[in-house]
């Protein structure tokens, strides 16, 4: 029950964040810097959304394995995301070479926004788990 609710909240909030960020950044490009727009822009939110889904599925797997496995798995997911992100930026810089600055700036904005979102979310989960544990101990 807890897991299902946590998953639903995460997916809902992540969808809202992705849509809002994409709309705001898309609008900025459209209104203020249309010459800097790059065709790969839609791939960035899709990448972060898919990685978010991967995160939450790994989280539910860790929760089923045991609460003590959650933080190590979370850190492994973070490391993987970091490496994949750096790899994507490097590949873009070498292979596409179109509006590198705009791509990197957009990627960074998405990365930091998602990083803050995920950190706040998983910190809240830890807090909730702690409260649950305390309640169990009292009973």
């Amino acid at each position, binding site marked *: 029950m807890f897991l299902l609710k946590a998953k639903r909240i995460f997916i809902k909030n992540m969808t809202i964040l992705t849509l809002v960020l994409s709309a705001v950044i898309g609008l900025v490009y459209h209104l203020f810097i249309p010459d800097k727009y790059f065709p790969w822009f839609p791939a960035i939110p899709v990448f972060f959304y898919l990685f978010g889904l991967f995160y939450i599925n790994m989280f539910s797997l860790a929760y089923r394995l045991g609460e003590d496995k959650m*933080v190590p798995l979370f*850190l492994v997911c*973070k490391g993987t995301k970091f490496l994949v*992100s750096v790899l994507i930026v490097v590949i873009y*810089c070498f292979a596409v070479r179109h509006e590198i600055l705009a791509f990197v700036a957009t*990627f960074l904005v998405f990365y930091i926004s998602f*990083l803050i979102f995920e950190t706040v979310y998983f*910190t809240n989960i*830890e807090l909730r788990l702690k409260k649950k544990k305390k309640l169990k101990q009292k009973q």
Partner: protein
Amino acid sequence: MLLSILLQAAAGAGLGKFGAALGAAIAVIGAGIGIGKIGSSAMEAIARQPEASGDIRMNMIIVAALVEGVALIAIIVCLLTLFL
């Protein structure tokens, strides 16, 4: 005069790119040391006080996120120096 010749020679030898790569390497080493220190301190603290493991883990997640963000920014700035 000599300095300008030296600077021109350095620019020709691609020292700027070397500097960018060195910057990225230093940033990654810093992030690695940072995350390693967080991990080791957290493990030590959990071993000393197992009842506080929840709080320690929570703070560990936050600090790891900060270090990761800084490392990515550093690497990307170095990449930009290399490509722009």
